[in-house]
């Protein structure tokens, strides 16, 4: 859907990883190449100033999508369009590259332990030449630290002097320092305490409102996602199974997998209720099951689901990839 407001677009993204054993071993045991299909055909669009979230279990490929969206991983096939340009071209020019930034999951690994906070935050400013002279850079760093709720004096400290939440604020300040328009957030709160999570999410929403940022938000936590998203995509084994406006997804989840995820959200009012857990494990992305990847765990699966892979099709406000929903068997 080519929309004038579309800012970032993923077109049929595919990313395979070669996880074969070394060639000599492979020849010895006569084994073929082993290809891990981390992302297996994903398309979505993000309008300017909005947040799209991708949720899913560990290993479903959401972090791989995040890294492809900023160009850390190349695509096996498919394209990322950034403001109408191919991402590869956009990243070749530094005035375009500075418009996209990333916030990472682990606040303990995302800051170089040997750098002072001021240098960490200033790295993009210096790399893109956004401020001239030491004083101008430091003034900008002080401004950024204030913006994320830290003191300008914190710039002289080292990362280990801060808590996880404060470190994530430093990460956000670094990401903001190049005046980006599109931010990819790879599970930015999953390493934090619940109370701190809320602070960071509020900060991110506040920054979005003030600076008109566009977010791609990756998480496995539905409660977190509900708070920040405009639209939510549910991923399973490298594919989108459902893509819907945030509230719609929570009020009328359509895909059996989405329903199972909703069931699993802890709920104070429903304590003691018997849950219907999703049976089984996520299949291996090296040897995905034929047909719909979810069929071994799906209560609604029939022969067609085992044979034919469902496409992501519109069903009212939602996009769903499920034969049962299309056929009206889902109820």
């Amino acid at each position, binding site marked *: 859907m080519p929309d004038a407001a579309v800012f970032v677009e993923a077109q049929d993204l595919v990313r395979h990883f070669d996880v074969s054993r070394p060639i000599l071993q492979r020849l010895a045991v006569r084994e073929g190449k082993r290809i891990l299909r981390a992302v297996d055909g994903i398309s979505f669009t993000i309008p300017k100033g909005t947040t799209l979230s991708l949720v899913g279990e560990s290993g479903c490929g959401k972090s791989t999508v995040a890294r492809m969206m*900023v160009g850390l991983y190349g695509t096996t096939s498919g394209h990322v369009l950034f403001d109408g340009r191919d991402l590869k071209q956009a990243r070749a020019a530094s005035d375009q590259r500075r418009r996209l930034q*990333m916030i*990472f999951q682990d606040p303990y690994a995302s800051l*170089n332990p040997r750098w002072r906070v001021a240098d960490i935050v200033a790295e993009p400013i210096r790399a893109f030449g956004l401020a001239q002279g030491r004083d101008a850079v430091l003034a900008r760093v002080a401004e950024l630290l204030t913006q994320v709720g830290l003191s300008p004096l914190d710039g002289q400290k080292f990362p280990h002097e801060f808590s996880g939440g404060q470190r994530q604020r430093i990460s956000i300040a670094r990401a903001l320092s190049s005046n980006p328009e599109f931010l990819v957030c790879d599970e930015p709160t999953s390493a934090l305490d619940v109370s701190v999570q809320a602070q960071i999410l509020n900060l991110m929403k506040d920054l979005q409102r003030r600076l008109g940022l566009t977010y791609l938000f990756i998480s496995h936590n539905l409660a977190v996602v509900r708070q920040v998203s405009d639209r939510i995509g549910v991923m399973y084994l490298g594919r989108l199974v459902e893509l819907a406006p945030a509230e719609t997804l929570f009020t009328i989840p359509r895909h059996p997998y989405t329903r199972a995820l909703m069931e699993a959200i802890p709920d104070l009012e429903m304590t003691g209720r018997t849950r219907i857990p999703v049976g089984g494990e996520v299949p291996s992305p090296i040897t995905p099951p034929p047909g719909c990847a979810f069929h071994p765990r799906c209560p609604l699966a029939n022969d067609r689901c085992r044979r034919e892979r469902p496409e992501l099709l519109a069903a009212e406000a939602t996009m769903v990839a499920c034969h049962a929903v299309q056929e009206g068997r889902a109820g």
Partner: protein
Amino acid sequence: MSGAIARFRDSDLWWSFKRSPVTILSAVVALICVGGALLAPFIAPHDPFDLASLNLGDAFKPPAWDEMGDAIYPLGTDDQGRDVLSAILYGARISLLVGFCATAFATIFGVSLGLLAGYIGGAVDSVLMRIADIQLTFPSILVALLVDGVVRAAVPREVHDQIALFVVVFAIGISEWPKFARTVRGSTLVERNKEYVLAARVIGVPSLRIMASHVLPNVLGPVLVIATLNLGLAILAEATLSFLGVGVPPTQPSLGTLIRIGNDFLFSGEWWIAIFPGLSLVAMVLSVNLLGDWLRDALNPKLR
């Protein structure tokens, strides 16, 4: 500056140093060795290179405490009438110089290649590490002998005497680089996937800059330990080469050269010519190694 000293006195390193008498003793011995070597021209009682001052009549004097000894030659004299103590002080200079330079060369060379192999990966990594593997199957003294032999065959004799010191440094350094490269490669593989490196890559910082400013400072800890331990090995390697007669030129005798000279007189009873340089070598290498061991343990958080 005083702040840095205060921080050091507060650090775990200083704390573990104070608690280990062996380490303190090693540090004192190492300091004496380095100090003696550096100050040799000022504290040596004689100048062993001043041929005019040599008196063949003073040859084979035993140490001063022997009844045949002479107080002006505290550790006796060799076959040319050279003062053994002075020769040791000057010899230690050469030994330490070659040891330091060879270790520095091996460190810079090995760390650079290890960083490249670990960060770039792929074919570069495979090729560099296979070369390192092959070299590790040879004893390092053999590699040093090989390098020395090739240079000797390649350049005329008078040129060789001038560059002999550099050749020894290169030969020992090149035989030790794989240790550094493998260690650094291992740590680089860990660091390069950390998110702070990814953050730098997102904004397009060039690979060489990322290696130098992000990865390098975070992989240097183990390198410091290996370099210290390697210093002892390099001094020994130089002594071995000089003992075999292929090391530093005879005009600049190192401890190894002195031992070789003394070796000829061991069985005729002039034991001091070989034993005192030997003891100095043992003291020097042992103290450096013990310091290296302490550094390794002190920097390993699991052993605290």
